[in-house]
């Protein structure tokens, strides 16, 4: 292969970047879903407290 390092750099960065972004997105989504569940729970308990008052 001629220009092999350019080909490796081209494919490596693009495919690696796509994979990295997909993994980062999955992690961010999992964290956000956990946070959403926690906050929803807190909001529900606060609403119950409000109704109790």
């Amino acid at each position, binding site marked *: 292969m001629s*220009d092999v390092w350019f*080909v490796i750099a081209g494919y490596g*960065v*693009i495919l690696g970047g*796509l994979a990295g972004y997909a993994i980062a*997105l999955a992690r961010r989504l999992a964290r956000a879903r956990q946070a959403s569940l926690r*906050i929803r729970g807190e909001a529900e308990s*606060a609403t119950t407290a409000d109704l109790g008052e």
Partner: protein
Amino acid sequence: MKTRILGFTALVAVAAATVNGLFIVPADLNQGDAQRIMYVHVASAWLAYLSFGVTAMAGIGYLVRRDLRLDAVALAGAEVGVMLTAFAIWGGMMWGRPVWGVFWQWEDPRLTTTALLLALYAGYLLFRRLTDDPHRRAARAAVVGLIAAIDIPIVHFSVIWWRGLHQGPTIGDPSKILNPSAPPLFVLALMSMLAAFTLVWGYLMVRRYQLARTEWEIEEHGRLGRISAARRSFTTESMAEESAP
């Protein structure tokens, strides 16, 4: 579950298209192996156009219907599009050095307008951080997204309108669709990579949309929580004042 299936299909498709593009399709007679970079470079560039087109359309949709789900679609398009534009530029640079002899040339209209496109949509993403109000943010972002979208046709037609280092359309030109100037094997490899990247694009768009919706829910719950806490605090203070002698 459907998104996971899409992700898995996209992974298999990209692996197959990469093996085809790197090891099965022959090297170009003039450009050598550097031409193989075109498969990922062109696929990234086309899907970047699509992403920003989606952002612009979703922005118009938001301005008409005031539905925050459309703003989430616009955000997903912009973020995925910025990444793909960066990849298209990178792929172009890796191809340009062995074929043109330079990584970059500012005098070239296609290169410069693409860099501008990247800057515009990176700016769009930063602009979204300026306000916390979801509807105000969505409306302002929709306008910025539409203004930035003006650069999409300029990037595309820059190779036709102005003279530069970047070559004209190889298969995108309507007159060349049935008779492309590239050999059928190369066109097939490019189309395979484009199909595989489209699956990846679909997967990333869905995931980014889901993330935007979840983040919006968190913001909304946070806001409701603050209102509820303020109400509780107000009630407690009122009761304390009433019971005071």
